C-alpha cells in the first residue's frame, strides 16, 4: 500500500492554526488513517519535467526521474525538506489522500470548521467534443469528465501536493490508470474547443512531458518514453489510442499515458484545465470530484465544461451533494450507543455531513467527494468515528450460548497428547509444497488427486499437500547434524481432489497424524510398536498387511486397515529416498488418518431461505 507524506507545515497552513503534532497524529488516527510515522522528507525536483520526488532524510537524492525518464549525472536539486506525517493510503477513502482533504476532515473533527461543504460551479465556457470512436472496442476509453479551475498562482508546495494527489488517485481509484486517469493542464496554453478522439499510432507527433525538444509519435512514446513503456500494456490491444487536442491541433495528452510538455502546469499557473478519462463512469467521476474538492480547499474556483458527444451535450463536474436516508434508532442499536439528538447533529457536522428530518428518520447529505457511501451503515460508521472508539464503554452480547468444539479438532488434540507421551516432538510444516519434495524425492509419481495452484509467485510451490511425509522429511533434513535419535510428529490436514466428494469444492480433507524416527539403528519394529501404542490409546484395532509403497523398503512396509475405513501406512524409508533428501541414517515413518474433516457430510448447499 502506498505511503503518503503529509507536510506538517502545509497542513498547518490549511488548518489555519498550528496544532501540536501529537494532537494532529492522534486525530488522524481517530479518523481512521493508518499512521506510519512522523519523519523528515526531502523533496527533489526533476530538472527535465519538473516533477517531484520525495525521499526520506536518510535516503540518497534521486538522479533519475520516474515520470519522464530523465537521467542526470548530478543528483536532482533539493527544493525543500519537510517534517511529514506519513500515512498508509486507505483505498476506501480517496478524500483523505492529500493534505487538503485531510485538513478538511481534521477541521470538522476538531470543530474548527464543521458542516457540509457546498461547492459552487460557474457555468461552462469551454467545450470538449468527444469522438464516438472511443466507444469502439479497438480504442475503448469512452468516459471523460472535465473541469476548469481558477487558483491563486500555483506555488511549489501546492503543485507538489496536486501531483501527488493525482498519482495516488491513479492508484486508489484508477487501478494504476486502468479504470481512470487524470490530466491537469495550464489552460492559458490551450485554445478551445478541445477534442477527445482516437488516433492511429503514427498519425501525429507531439513532445511528451519532460522532452520539450523531441517530437514523438504515439507509437514511439509507448516504445521509448519511460511512462510510455510503463503503461503500454493498457493500450496494447488497441489499434487506435485516445488523445486530447485543442482547436489549434496542440496535443494536451495521450490518456492514460502522458501529457504534452507544452501544456504542462508550472509554478505560477492560475488557470487549470482538468480531464479524467476512463473505462467506468463512476470511477472517472469519483476521481474528478475528489481532486476538485481538494483544489477548492486550496481556494480553487471551479467552472464547468460542456462535453458534447454525438450531438448530445452535458456539463461536468457534478459536485452536488448526495443524500441518503437513515434511521437514528437503527443507528443507536447498530452501534450500541445512546446518541442524543444534540450529539447526533453535532457529530454529523463534525464529519462534514448535512442533516434534515425529524426523529427517527433523517436525510443525510454528503459531499461529492465521499465516494464510499452506499448504505446507511456508512453513516453509522461516521457516527461511531465521531463518538470516538476510545470513548466507548465495551461490553458483551447479552445472549447466552453454549460452546462446542469440532470432534476432529478434539481428535487431533488426543493424537498430539499421545505422541508427546511417546516422546515425539511436534512440528508444523507448510501445506504448500513442491513437486520435488512431495513426490519425486519420495520416489512417488504424482497422481491426479492432488490440488494444483495455477499462479504461485514462487513457481515451485504449486502443490497443496496430500500427505504429511514431505513435511517430516523436511524436519529430518533441517536437523540432520544434530544428536540421534530424533523423533517428530505432525498432525494436520491434507487435501485430496475428489469430484465425487459431494461438496462444492470437489475436494476432501483428512486430518492426518504422521510420525518418524531417525536413529543409527531403527526400523519397522520400532515404528510398529509406536503405531500399536497409538492404536491402543485410541482404542482402535487394525489389520496389518504387507504393502508395496515406493517410499519404503520392499518387505518392510505395511498397510493397516481400520474398521472405521481409515487406514495407516508404516515402514522403513527407502535408502533411495534418504539419498534424495540428503539423510545419512535409517528412518522409519508412519502416517494415518485420524479424522475426516471435509467429506460427504460437508455440503456446499446453503439452507433455502
Amino acid at each position, binding site marked *: 500500500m502506498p505511503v503518503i507524506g503529509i507536510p506538517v507545515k502545509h497542513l498547518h497552513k490549511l488548518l489555519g492554526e498550528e496544532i501540536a503534532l501529537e494532537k494532529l497524529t492522534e486525530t488522524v488516527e481517530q479518523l481512521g488513517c493508518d499512521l506510519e510515522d512522523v519523519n523528515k522528507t526531502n523533496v527533489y525536483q526533476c530538472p527535465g519535467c519538473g516533477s517531484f520526488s520525495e525521499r526520506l532524510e536518510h535516503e540518497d537524492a534521486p538522479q533519475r526521474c520516474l515520470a519522464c525518464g530523465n537521467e542526470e549525472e548530478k543528483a536532482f536539486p533539493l527544493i525543500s525538506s519537510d517534517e511529514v506525517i506519513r500515512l498508509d493510503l486507505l483505498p476506501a477513502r480517496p478524500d483523505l489522500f492529500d493534505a487538503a482533504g485531510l485538513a478538511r476532515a481534521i477541521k470538522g473533527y476538531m470543530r474548527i470548521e464543521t458542516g457540509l461543504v457546498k461547492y459552487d460551479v460557474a457555468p461552462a465556457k469551454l467545450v470538449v467534443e468527444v469522438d464516438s470512436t472511443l466507444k469502439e472496442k479497438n480504442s475503448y476509453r469512452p468516459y471523460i469528465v472535465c473541469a476548469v479551475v481558477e487558483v491563486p498562482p500555483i506555488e511549489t508546495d501546492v503543485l507538489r501536493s496536486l501531483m501527488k494527489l493525482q498519482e495516488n488517485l491513479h492508484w486508489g481509484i484508477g487501478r494504476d490508470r486502468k479504470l481512470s486517469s487524470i490530466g491537469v493542464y495550464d489552460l492559458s496554453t490551450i485554445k478551445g474547443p478541445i477534442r477527445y478522439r482516437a488516433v492511429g499510432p503514427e498519425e501525429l507527433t507531439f513532445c511528451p512531458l519532460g522532452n520539450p525538444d523531441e517530437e514523438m509519435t504515439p507509437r514511439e512514446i509507448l516504445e521509448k518514453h519511460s511512462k510510455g513503456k510503463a503503461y503500454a500494456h493498457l493500450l496494447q490491444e488497441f489499434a487506435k489510442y485516445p488523445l486530447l487536442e485543442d482547436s489549434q491541433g496542440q496535443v494536451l495528452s495521450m490518456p492514460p499515458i502522458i501529457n504534452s510538455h507544452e501544456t504542462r502546469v508550472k509554478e505560477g499557473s492560475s488557470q487549470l484545465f482538468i480531464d479524467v478519462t476512463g473505462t467506468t463512469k463512476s470511477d472517472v467521476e469519483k476521481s474528478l470530484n475528489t481532486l476538485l474538492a481538494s483544489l477548492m480547499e486550496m481556494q480553487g474556483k471551479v467552472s464547468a465544461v460542456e462535453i458534447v458527444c454525438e450531438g448530445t451535450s452535458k456539463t461536468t463536474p457534478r459536485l452536488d451533494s448526495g443524500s441518503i436516508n437513515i434511521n437514528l434508532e437503527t443507528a443507536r442499536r447498530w*452501534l450500541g450507543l445512546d446518541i442524543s439528538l444534540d450529539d447526533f447533529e453535532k457529530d454529523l457536522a463534525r464529519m462534514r455531513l448535512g442533516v434534515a428530518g425529524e426523529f427517527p428518520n433523517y436525510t443525510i447529505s454528503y459531499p461529492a467527494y465521499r465516494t464510499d457511501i452506499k*448504505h446507511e451503515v456508512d453513516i453509522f460508521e461516521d457516527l461511531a468515528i465521531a463518538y470516538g472508539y476510545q470513548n466507548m464503554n465495551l461490553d458483551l452480547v447479552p445472549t447466552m450460548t453454549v460452546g462446542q468444539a469440532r470432534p476432529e479438532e478434539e481428535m487431533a488434540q488426543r493424537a498430539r497428547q499421545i505422541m508427546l507421551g511417546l516422546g515425539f516432538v511436534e512440528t508444523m510444516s507448510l501445506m504448500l509444497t513442491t513437486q520435488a519434495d512431495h513426490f519425486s524425492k519420495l520416489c512417488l509419481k504424482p497422481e491426479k488427486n492432488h490440488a494444483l*495452484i495455477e499462479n504461485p509467485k514462487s513457481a515451485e510451490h504449486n502443490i*497443496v499437500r496430500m500427505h504429511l511425509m514431505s513435511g517430516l522429511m523436511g524436519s529430518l533434513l533441517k536437523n540432520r547434524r544434530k544428536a540421534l535419535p530424533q523423533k517428530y510428529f505432525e498432525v494436520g490436514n491434507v487435501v485430496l481432489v475428489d469430484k465425487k466428494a459431494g461438496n462444492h469444492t470437489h475436494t476432501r480433507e483428512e486430518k492426518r497424524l504422521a510420525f518418524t524416527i531417525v536413529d543409527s539403528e531403527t526400523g519397522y519394529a520400532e515404528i510398529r510398536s509406536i503405531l500399536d501404542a497409538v492404536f491402543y490409546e485410541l482404542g482402535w484395532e487394525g489389520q496389518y498387511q504387507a504393502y508395496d509403497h515406493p517410499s519404503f523398503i520392499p518387505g518392510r512396509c505395511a498397510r493397516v486397515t481400520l474398521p472405521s475405513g481409515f487406514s495407516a501406512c508404516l515402514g522403513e524409508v527407502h535408502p533411495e529416498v534418504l539419498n534424495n533428501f540428503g539423510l545419512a541414517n535409517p528412518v522409519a515413518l508412519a502416517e494415518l488418518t485420524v479424522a475426516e474433516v471435509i467429506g460427504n457430510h460437508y455440503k456446499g448447499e446453503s439452507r433455502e431461505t
Partner: protein
Amino acid sequence: MSIEITAEQSKLFKMALESSTTLDMQNLSTQTGVDLPMVMGSMTFAQDQGWIKITEQSREELIAQEGAREAINKGLPERQFLDVLHQESGSMPMKMVASKSQELGIKVNDIIKWGTMKEWFEKDKGNLSLGKQAEQALQEKADDEKALALVVEKERLFIDELPEEINPDYVKRFLKKRSDLVKCKERTLRFVEVTKKGKKEIPSLSVKAEEKNILSSEDIVSGKWKEIKLRSYDVTLAAEPKKTVKNHPLQKIIQETRRTFLEMGFTELVSSHLETGFWDFDALFQPQDHPSRDMQDTFYMKRPHEGDLPSKNIVEKVKKTHEDGGDSGSTGWGYKWQTKEAKRMILRTHTTATTVHYLAQNPNPPSKVFSVGRVFRNETISFKHLPEFHQVDGIIVDSEASFRNLLGTIQAFYNKMGFKKVKFKPSFFPYTEPSAEVFVWMEQKNCWIELGGSGIFRPEVTIPLGCNVPVLAWGLGLERLAMLRYGVSDIRTLYESDLDWLQEVRLCQ
C-alpha cells in the same frame, strides 16, 4: 576425640600388625586387594598418627627383556662360539670367525667383545684362540648366565636376592650393559613397620560405616543399607540439562485461542482450505475487480479449477446486491457480476469464508461461532512473509448485537489470552461497517501491536444470505502473536522445525 578409620584402612593396618615380616606397600596391596594409591594414602595417614613408620629402601632389580629367553635356550653368543672354537682345536683365523658366526646367525662383535672381556678368547696375530678362563667356562656356566636364567624364570629379580654362590659384581659387570637381555632398574620400596603406639592403638580403632553413592537393590532388600553411609551431595551444584518434548509453539497459541473462544460460549467451525471465489469474496460483497482478488494476491487453482455455487436463490441475491444493491438498501457496486468468476477455486484468503458460509446455512439468530485455520496469500517466502498463515475468525449473529459488543468481545478474548490492554482504531474494510483495527499492548516491547480487523457485516453481506440482524465479525492473525510471545523475528522459524528452537522455546511462559 576418637579417630575413625575406614574398613579398608582397618584391613591394611591389621595386616601390617599381624604379619611376621616387615611388609612393603606393594605387598600389602597384593595381599589385601586394596589398590596401591589407597594403601599409600592410608599409610601416610597412619604414619602421621604415629602408628607406623615408613622406611624406604633402594634396590637394584633385573627385569627380563625380549632377547633373554632365546639367549638361555641357545646360549649367549660367546658361549655358542666357545663350543665351536673348542671343537676347532682352539684357534681359527679372524676371517673364519666372521664366516662361522654368520653361519650361526650371531654377531661377530658380540663374540669378540664379551668373549675377550670374560677372557674366554684372546686375539693373536689375526687369529682368535681360547683364553685363560676358557677351560673353566667349558666346565661350568658363568655367574651372569646363571643369573640370567633366574631372571628369565622369575621375570624380575633383585640383585640382592641372588643366591650366595653367584657373585653379584660379576653379574652386574656382564649383564647391566646388555639391555637386549635385561634391564637393571633401581626401585624404592616402602616398608611399613608398626610402632609401639600403633601396636597399642590400632586394635582399638573404631571403623567407619561403609560409604556409598548409590544403594544397590541388594543393599535395600537385605537391610545392609543400615550399615551403609550415603555420601552427602553438594545440592547447590548445577545439574545436567534436560530437554522436554512438547507441542509446537504455534500449536500452543492455536489451542489457547480455541479454548478461549470455547470458554466464551462459541461453537467451532471448520471448512475446506480450497474455496470458491463466491464464499471468499462475492458473499462478502467484494467486487469482482477488487484488487485483493488479483492474481498477484490470491492463489487460483488449476485443479480443481471450478467449484459449485450454492442455491440459485442465494447466487441471484448476491449478484443483484453487487450490481445495484438488491434488497439490502444499498446502491451496490454498479457493475456486471459474473458467475464464472464466483465459481473459480482459490486457496481461501481468510477464514471469513468459513464464517460467512456458516451464516448462509444458519441465518437465524442467535449464534456465536469461530474457526481457526490456515489462510493463503500469494507471497514469496521471506523473513516477513509466508504464503500461508493462521487466522481466527468469528461471528456473532444476534438481534441485540452492537458495535460496542463487538469491541467488548474482542477485548475479552485478548484479556483472556493475557493482554491487559486492548485498543481499537477506525479502519475501512470492504465488508464491515463500522470497521475497527485491533491493537494489543506489548508490555515487553512497550508498544501497541496490530493483530487484526473487525466490524459489523454490511447489510450487503447479510441480507442476501437471509440474515436480518447485525453480525459482528473479526479476523485475527495468530503467527504475529506467536512471534511476539516467543521472541521470533523471522516468521519462517515457525515452520522450519529447528529442533533446538522447538526444545528451547518456553511454552508455559
